Structures are given as structure tokens and as C-alpha cells.
């Protein structure tokens, strides 16, 4: 393992430690979405996914 990998491990580890309390707070306090909200979000992700497939075909 070279020192760039060690640096990346340290950076990603620090990110996990930094994000964890924010994640816990967001999970506890975020408003709950209805099934319609989630379906809407899912549809958007499908459109984005199809667009990525289109981009992959282009290169």
C-alpha cells in the first residue's frame, strides 16, 4: 500500500467520522415522504439512469 492509498484511507475514514452524527440527525429529524413522493423520486432516478446509458452509448 503506497502513501497515496494511505492518504485516501485517512480522508475517507475522516469523512465517515464527520458524516456519522449528521446522518443520525438527518435520519431522526427529516420529514417522512409519502409513497407518491418516493415514486416521483424513483421516476427521476430512472430518467437520469436512462440518460447515463445514452451517454455510455455515445462514447
Amino acid at each position, binding site marked *: 500500500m503506497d502513501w497515496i492509498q494511505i492518504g485516501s484511507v485517512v480522508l475517507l475514514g475522516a469523512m465517515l467520522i464527520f458524516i456519522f452524527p449528521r446522518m443520525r440527525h438527518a*435520519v431522526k429529524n427529516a*420529514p417522512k415522504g409519502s409513497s407518491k413522493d418516493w415514486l416521483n423520486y424513483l421516476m427521476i432516478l430512472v430518467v437520469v439512469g436512462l440518460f*447515463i446509458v445514452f451517454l455510455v452509448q455515445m462514447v
Partner: protein
Amino acid sequence: MNPNYSVATHSSSSTLATNKLIRNTYTLLSMTLLFSAGAATAGVMMNLSQGMALGATIAAIAMLWFVLPRTANSAVGIPVIFGITGLLGLGLGPVLNYYLSVNPNIVMTALGGTGAIFLGLSAYALTTRKDFSFLAGFLMVGMFVVIGASLLNIFLNIPVMSLAVSAAVIMIMSGFILYQTSAMVNGGETNYIMATASLFLSIINMFQALLHILGAFNSND
């Protein structure tokens, strides 16, 4: 005072404040993206090493965590956000150099694709004015899992896992763009410097993930 008049005045001033926030955010975002693109070009031309790029990225993240939250409510926040975005752009140097040497078309397609996804999602959130605050928990958990998987893959080195992480990053960043734009429209975010930082990070992460996916499926290998 007539209560109806008071409500109308309050609503109109709130709309003005939202419009000002959106205008300021997109102006600052455009400027930081241009600045970051300039820094990335400098990184490519200087043939920046991976170590230097990692150093620039670590410095940018440290500024993002420890300096920006303390300065975002003052004029000092502007040079800080330019510093962060410049360092992140500089950190892209070696990655861009690699993909430009493989197939320059990949970089242009990733750039255009990221721009199109960002504009499409922003336009959707701005025009529908839907509230995407319910995504907060899901996006943070997704981010945590993706960072954990990236960390694990440094040791495992599985190419398919790396591709899956990139695909997940694009989906999560799409969610962050919707969430942040809707927060600006619906009053969840009132600081244009913080809104710019959040949107910039979504764009740069999406660009890197798209570069990785397009590079992996590149037919010119």
C-alpha cells in the same frame, strides 16, 4: 393595518428574498465553476502529481468542514468558497490528464452530461416547487454507505464494486441537487454561499463518477 395587506406584503417580501437567494446562488455557482475549471486546466497543464492532487483535495475538504461554516455569513465566505472550489478543481488534474490521454471525448461527454443532468434537475425542482426535504435521511445514509464502500474497495480493489459506487454516487448527487434546490425554494436554505458549496460538491462528484463510468465503458480501449 389591513391583515390581508400585511399577509400579501409578507408573502411578496418572502418571494423576493427567495428569488434573490436563487439568483445569488446561481451567479456564485457559475463563477466558482469557471474558476474551478481554470484551476483544473492549470492542474492538467502542470501535470500535477497524484500526491499533490490528494493534498489539494484534503485542504479543500478541511476548509469546507472547518472554515466555511464559520465564514459563510460574512464577506470572507466568498474568497473561502473560491479557495475550496479552486483546490477541488486543481485536485481533478491527474484524473483529467488520464482520461484526456485515453479518449478526450470521455471528458467532454462527462462535462456535457453533468451539465445537462444538473440543469434538468434544477429546472424540475424550481418549476414544480416540490418539497424534497424528505430525502435528507436517505441521502445522508446513501453518502455514508458509498464512502464506506469506497474505503473498503481500496483494500479489496474490485472493479465492479468501484463502478457500482460511481453509479450510486450519480443517483445520490441527483438527489442532493433536488434536495438543495427545493430547500432554496421552500426556505430550508437561506445562505447562498452554503447553497453554492452544496451544489458545487454535487456537480463535481457527479462529474467524477460519470468520468469513471464512461471511461470503464469506453469502446476505444
